[in-house]
């Protein structure tokens, strides 16, 4: 499968919930997924043949959070970049750790740094910072000494 075919497949499977498909460069597929359909999209991607989760990055866009999933398919040579918007007042998203066990530490790190709660994560604790920290340092409204 190449990028277009994956796009077609996803559009067929999810008439609603995925949007904004674009191809930044060869072997790269970028699209957005709704927050509540994210896990289904990821499960579908895994079934298609995206074997490994490379990176989960959490972004603070001031108006909303965003989770960016980079999912690799070594057999097709494609990286899928899935953007998910998360509202500021309810920073929750479904965990993809049941889909890829490798997402475990990435999600813990995103929770640690940005305060996004991954629902369904087996062991959501702080990973890099001490357990008794009460703030999330990578948020844009974080100030030193706060």
């Amino acid at each position: 499968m190449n990028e277009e075919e994956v796009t077609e497949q996803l559009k067929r499977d999810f008439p609603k919930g995925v949007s904004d498909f674009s191809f930044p460069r060869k072997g790269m597929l970028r699209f957005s997924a709704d927050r509540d359909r994210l896990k289904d999209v990821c499960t579908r991607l895994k079934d298609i043949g995206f074997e490994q989760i490379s990176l989960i990055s959490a972004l603070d866009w001031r108006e909303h959070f965003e989770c960016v999933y980079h999912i690799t398919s070594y057999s097709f040579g494609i990286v899928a970049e899935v953007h998910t918007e998360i509202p500021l007042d309810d920073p929750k998203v479904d965990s993809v750790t049941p889909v890829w066990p490798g997402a475990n530490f990435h999600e813990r790190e995103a929770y640690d740094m940005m305060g996004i709660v991954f629902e369904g994560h087996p062991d959501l604790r702080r990973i890099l910072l001490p357990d008794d920290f009460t703030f999330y340092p990578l948020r844009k409204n974080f100030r030193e000494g706060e």
Partner: protein
Amino acid sequence: MTKLWINMGPQHPMTHGLWNLRILVDGETIVDAEPVLGYLHRGVEKLCERRTYNQIIPLADRLCYVSSLCFAHAYCLTVEEMMDLEIPERAKYLRVIALELQRVTSHMTWLMAIGPDVGLITLLLYCLREREYFLDLLQLQTGARMNQNYPRIGGVSQDIPSNFEHKAIKIIDKFKVRVKDYHKVTNESSAFLKRMQGVGTLSVEDAIAYGVTGPNIRGSGAKLDMREHDPYEVYDELDWEIQVRDEGDSLARFHVRMGEMQESCKIILQALKKMPDGPINVKAPLRPEGQTFRRTEDSRGEVSYYVVGNGGESPYRLKVRSPIFCTMNVLPKLLTGVNVADVLAIMGSIDVCIGETDK
């Protein structure tokens, strides 16, 4: 017998760096394991949000103090792609040479660390000796031994001197002779084999699912190398082979890395021969915009940067994927059921670097 939680770390000879491996032992057998990270967290991602794009390069160097050039290069590559920048051909070759030199030194560090792990301190000193020669070469090229700050957005900082090729050939020849000695000390002595063989077996499926990359996954039999899979610089023009082993145990990972060192030497010599003349730097815009994700092959695995720029002097968000951080994920699975002494052989073969893990 009662089970004991044992802390291997943060101050423990097993940990190469500052981390803690908690293991639950039943006698000498490990029942459960849990890596505890974060002792070396420096908040690099937050720091990057306040530095200009150029000033991040020395910071990226310090992510991993053993293969610093790889991290700085991956950052530059990502930002260049965000800027749509095509760097000169000579700079690409220079980068490849520096990267492969760094890969050899990094693997030498791994080899010298695995020695004391299994109780072979002599190996440490032998490897330090040869690593010094490669650091000399690296210093000749980049101006510093450890944190080189060599790649720039749009090229490299300086050219190689005229006597570089001569010295490189001399040192690589010397190294090839010495590698035979290492093989005699390690994988040709069955005392070493006894420690490494059949220990810490990791299947391909598990390795991929848990996000293991680099030499560790190649030791499990997956022919994955970002230099080949997602080629950057001039790796597709050079003739080299991916080192793959099927066994998936510590010894396989050992062999993969030993082979990679020699492949790196091959690449260096080829690149020196094929390198064209020309400029080594192009001008880069100062305030790029966009978002890019780029993967490169570090000596430990896949290093990716996800950079979001919003037209300011500093990136809006920079996210590092450090290979060992992802590999730590698999530890509970890898370590359950093995002996206490095998932890050393397994962790040694995984090649832990805490600088990049804790970011």
